[in-house]
């Protein structure tokens, strides 16, 4: 696989760095390679820190392993995985996580795209830069605070949101405290926090579109809608895709907002995978069962990440 960097870099620099043209092989050359002292500390540190938990998780997921039981764990085979897939709560958690992810990312993109256009339109006015910085503040807010903040504002009895709604004649909403509205409230809060991120990504993508393409579209008599569909969306696609992938991965491990607002409730209305695994381990002390859930989450994230990385054009990947 050729990277952009290999293309840009004159080939003789590579030969300088390695001491010879061919890449080095073998243990001795590994230690002689000039890159080794720079990379080794980070690699060793990360390797010990990630490989051990990973192996440990995989092993415990095959054990009957309870943190409260003093006896050594026994082998469970695929038992944990089988009960996991039979566990209704787990499938609810997976479904909720999927729904939150898809709905949030779609709405975030729509809002982000529109806001990016708005900020680009006023970019040459004084103060627009400052305005944009203020606009992105929500994404800088600590996620757990995002949850607490909205559970305060959306409090059904005295919360300011219901008060404001009552002024314009809308009936008070139960928000987080009702099974029918809780999930959408979580999505709303998530969208509030992360739309600015999509705005930044869309802005970066939109400003890189060459001006003459717009000019050409205008001369061809394209309406704004056609310009968006035929010129902008195809051209921002790859950049926006990178942003979407990171948002999907983040949503998949969403924990803080849910923990601060609903803790999965009411009932199981907002149960998500991370919370499910957390509770199995630290409330019910089912380490083996929780580990199986964690391994499943990890596999989903890994498969998604690998597929996404393959789909991305090279230059974006290295940009």
């Amino acid at each position, binding site marked *: 696989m050729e990277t952009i960097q290999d293309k840009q*870099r004159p080939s003789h620099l590579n030969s*300088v*760095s390695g001491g010879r043209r061919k*890449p*080095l*092989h073998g243990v001795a050359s590994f230690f002689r*390679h000039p*890159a080794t*002292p*720079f*990379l080794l*500390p*980070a*690699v060793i*540190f*990360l390797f010990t*820190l*990630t490989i051990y*938990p990973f192996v440990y998780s995989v092993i*415990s997921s095959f054990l009957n392993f309870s943190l409260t039981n003093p006896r050594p764990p026994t082998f469970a085979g695929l038992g944990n995985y089988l009960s996991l897939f039979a566990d209704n709560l787990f499938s609810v958690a997976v479904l909720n996580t999927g729904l939150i992810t898809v709905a949030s990312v779609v709405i975030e993109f729509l809002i982000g795209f529109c806001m990016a256009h*708005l*900020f680009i339109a006023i970019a040459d*006015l004084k103060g*627009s830069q400052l305005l944009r*910085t203020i*606009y*992105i*503040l929500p994404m*800088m*807010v*600590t996620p*757990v*605070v995002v949850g*607490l*903040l909205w559970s*305060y*504002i959306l409090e059904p009895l*005295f919360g*300011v949101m219901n*008060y404001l709604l009552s002024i314009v004649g809308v009936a008070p909403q139960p928000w987080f405290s009702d099974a029918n509205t809780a999930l959408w409230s979580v999505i709303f809060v998530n969208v509030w926090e992360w739309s*600015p*991120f999509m705005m*930044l*990504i869309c802005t*970066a993508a939109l400003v890189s579109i060459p001006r003459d393409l717009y000019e050409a579209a205008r001369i061809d008599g394209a309406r704004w809608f056609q310009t968006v569909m035929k010129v902008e969306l195809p051209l921002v696609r790859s950049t926006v895709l990178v942003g979407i992938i*990171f948002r999907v991965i983040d949503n998949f491990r969403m*924990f803080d907002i849910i*923990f*601060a607002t609903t803790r999965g409730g009411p009932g199981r209305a907002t149960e998500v995978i*991370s919370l499910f*695994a*957390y509770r199995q*381990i*630290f409330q019910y002390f089912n380490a083996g069962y929780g580990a199986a859930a*964690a*391994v499943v*989450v*990890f596999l989903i*994230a*890994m498969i998604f990440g690998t597929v996404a990385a393959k789909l991305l054009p090279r230059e974006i990947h290295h940009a």
Partner: protein
Amino acid sequence: MRKIKLRKRLLFILAALLTLLNVAPLLWVAVSSLKTRVEIFANPPTFLPEVWRVDNYARLFHDNLPFLLNSIVVTLLSTLGVLILSVPAAFGLSTFSFAKKRDLEMWFLSGRMMPPVAAAIPFYLTLRQIGLIDTHFGLIILYIGIGTPLAVWLISSFMRSIHPAICEAARIDGCNWWNIFFRITLPLSSGGIATATIFVSIFAWNELLLPLFLTNRLAKTFPVVLTSFQGQTEIAWELMCAGATIQVLPVLILTFFVQKYIVSGLTLGSVR
């Protein structure tokens, strides 16, 4: 020409209104943190406190100052640790070519895919075994582990944009790699290092899940304290608002100064 200008003005006003709407929740919490408990529950709500009081902050600090200090210590030390590991590693990845380099890059990136909860039990059990539960050290080690992949990714994409001819010239002049690293690459990639520092420290400052189960008393960080205001029966909203303000204010103020780096970091590697 006039018409275009007017249209732009109107758009600016629209953007200003939407922006205000977007940050109104933050202002609401900051204002509420200065209200009394009684006033918080007032119906209809008062928009500005009747009397501006800092009592909530006094009470908050009285009980929780050590935990705020924990947050600061853990954030600073883990960010330092990330930089010590990741800057040389980024140099290694961006400057040299070697076999399996692409795999190594992907391996670094895969650190970002791991959901923290997947690492929860092994971290917990290991730290318990070696007596690092509820210590700063235990948290710092894990934060370094989570921050390093991100920082390597960001800094190495920055370093790649440095013209290789400069390194080459230095090399021909007899400079060794450590000299090139310290004298040429490091100063030229200060923007990337700044970006990584910002993202890594914000991550450490915000993290909830890891300290939630790895600390209980001594090394508890501030985000964990914030969740503890939600009691079983009632919620200390006035303390929560004060705590939330303390937690986010430093980051929001920082944002105004480092906006440039945040935007470049996001568009570089599309990190969160």
